[in-house]
């Protein structure tokens, strides 16, 4: 990316609540504490998590009927998208607004599972005959819509009437950075003059959490989280909440830490604030070392200690936290390390008045 683009609005949903102003400061002050997950209480009781609390009906996404089609991530995404669009004042020509999102895995409501299993299992095993003629009829007919990963983009677009260029990228970190980078390319190329980009996901679905446990992430300090965050971008704007200078994804798992460090040498030499979002203990150590060695004197804030790892949402939540903490004339570097093994780096700046 060459010239910076303007950030003219933002939206977020996290354990902090709905909204991004104050999020970074709450994280930095240690005001957010992990609590036992209500979403995992039945499947994995006693799991500490960073979980979105009850959503007031007036602030929820769509109506009750629309929410039946939504996974939890799609619901959180739609709220964050609405907040970002409102904050940016993107009220007109919405059919021209571009939208790029990092999205997570499927998440059908687990309440549907017992009905299908009860109707489909015979003698302790799955009977295809029973599934075909009884099990399918026992479930919510709309559960397929909850499994569509791209609906974390589409529900928000439908509710808000967005119609511009777009894409949804599967993400456990780096896909969300790709979403933001693509939004910037589209703005620069003139494919749209306004865009939103971000990520939404939950690590608090029982199947997802079982996977993260099985793959050893929880044993290495991963705190499961969830949320959504969206930036509203414009090619040019004044005043702006901030400027996005660059956003990249770097292969960590395949290339090794040395390559990651080499790639980060391309980042600006000066930063006043470094926000890191490591998925767990191992990357926390080397991201912290990296921040300390490259940006000595900069304030370092670890958002994952409080917000946990919310997979596709992690980079986006770190971006809005940085935006909240950034003061006029300062530059922030946001580094995330996701469970995909990849690293993302984004650079933000806030101009002096």
């Amino acid at each position: 990316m060459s010239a910076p683009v303007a950030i003219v609005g933002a939206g977020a949903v996290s354990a902090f609540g709905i909204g991004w102003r104050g999020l970074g400061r709450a994280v930095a002050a240690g005001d957010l504490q992990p609590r036992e997950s209500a979403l995992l209480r039945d499947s994995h009781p006693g799991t500490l998590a960073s979980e979105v609390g009850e959503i007031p009906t007036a602030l929820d996404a769509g109506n009750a009927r629309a929410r039946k089609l939504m996974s939890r991530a799609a619901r959180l995404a739609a709220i964050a998208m609405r907040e970002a669009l409102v904050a940016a004042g993107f009220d007109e020509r919405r059919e021209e607004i571009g939208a790029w999102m990092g999205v997570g895995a499927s998440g059908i409501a687990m309440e549907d599972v017992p009905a299908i299993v009860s109707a489909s299992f015979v003698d302790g095993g799955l009977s295809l005959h029973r599934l075909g003629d009884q099990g399918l009829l026992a479930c919510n007919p709309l559960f397929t819509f909850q499994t569509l990963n791209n609906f974390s983009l589409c529900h928000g677009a439908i509710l808000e009437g967005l119609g511009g260029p777009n894409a949804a990228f599967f993400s456990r970190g780096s896909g969300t950075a790709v979403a933001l980078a693509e939004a910037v390319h589209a703005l620069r190329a003139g494919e749209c003059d306004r865009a939103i980009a971000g990520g939404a996901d939950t690590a608090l679905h029982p199947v997802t959490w079982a996977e993260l446990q099985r793959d050893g992430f929880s044993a290495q300090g991963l705190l499961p989280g969830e949320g959504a965050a969206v930036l509203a971008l414009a090619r040019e704007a004044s005043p702006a909440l901030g400027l996005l200078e660059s956003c990249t994804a770097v292969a960590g798992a395949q290339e090794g830490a040395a390559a990651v460090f080499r790639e980060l040498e391309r980042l600006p030499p000066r930063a006043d604030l470094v926000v890191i979002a490591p998925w767990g203990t191992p990357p926390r150590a080397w991201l912290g070392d990296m921040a300390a060695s490259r940006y000595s004197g900069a304030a370092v804030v670890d958002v994952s200690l409080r917000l946990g790892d919310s997979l596709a949402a992690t980079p986006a939540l770190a971006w809005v936290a940085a935006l909240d903490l950034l003061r006029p004339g300062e530059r922030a570097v946001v580094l995330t390390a996701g469970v995909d093994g990849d690293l993302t780096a984004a650079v933000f700046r806030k101009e002096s008045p």
Partner: protein
Amino acid sequence: MRRAVITGAGAVSAFGVGLPALFDGLAEGRAAVGEIRSFDASTFPVHVAGEVPIAAIDAQWLAREMGAVPGGEAIADRAAATGALRDRKVAFALLAAAEAWRSAGSPATGPKARLSFAVGLEQAFFEDLAPLWTGGSVDWSREPDAPLPAVRFRSPVDLGPRLVARLLGLRAPLVIHSSACAAGALAVAHAAALIERGEADLVLCGGADSMVNPLGIGGLARIGAPSPRNEPDACRPFDRRRDGLAIGEGAAAFVIEDESRARSRGARVRARVLGWGSTQDGYRATAPRPDGAAARRAMERALRRAGVVPERVGYVNAHGTGTPLNDPAESLAIRGALDGAAVPVSSIKGAVGHLMSASGAIELAACLLAFERGLLPGTAHHRERDPDCPIDVIGERPRRARVEVVLSNSFGFGGQNVTVALGNPEAAS
């Protein structure tokens, strides 16, 4: 100026493994939708599909079909050992990618080689809940000791692409497109963008998908998308009698690189990726916009980016699902975007089914038939014209034509629309 060109292509479809099988099937005007054989679907509301003709996928079959690709056997063994091959689209992704890479002349994949790939949903393995099912609920505390393979409950979304990257030595972050039925075409468009911007010198792109499994078929049946007739002609695109789609499975992959680089290494240029455009309906989760306005804008964006006037378009490969709602809306979009010109249009979904996230990729592969054999694919089971679809639909047999520019439409559940414009490499730039 860098220009993206296709130098390698591979496909897996209901016609079989390999791009030649797809080309031959389409060139002969055949259709390959039939009774599902890979599992017992006899009690399911839908039991026909465009199924890849292989009942069970194992490591030996996969390694053999991948052909001469270094490390292919090891990847196939690894995929089998972890349970990855339980998800058919994993094998399809590997097969299509290996064929594309071989047909591009097995190019070196350095640090600027990328992967931009579309995949469908995680496949759910419902049967894996059996060892955890106790007293009417799932007891997750039993999960660590459950006698299940590493890939259990659901296949990770990026499972296939990660194996493809390992096979071909692609080390940059993977870009996994998750835009439902628009994803395959978006993956190709993204690959072309990476080439044009100089962010990559080679991109393996495309898509793989299979919903030919119990919960995939069952879920789609529950929302009423497939034809209820369970006949080989389940999908009748643009036909007055159309009543739903036919579910398909498979993959298509391409090697895309900069034209000057391709020509300098002596690679055969099979098509130019001239342009693309995407829009969203922003309308409903369960239906496309009836006026086709957003789809039309995607086509217009693609033409604009390609720098092509409508008169130069010789063929449109339609999304053409054969559903009551899609086809009239798409007809309006095509007429509008092409200024009412009578451009030949067809859909291959009657022949191979709807490949979901891979549909955009397999349909771009089908477009190569126009450049390489001078044939525009036909529309299997299109027999009765529909006045609500007032476009020049190619009938069941392919049509001979020499064309300069083709468009391929892909529209996803949720309202994502994308059009990709390909150029004949033998035509003037």
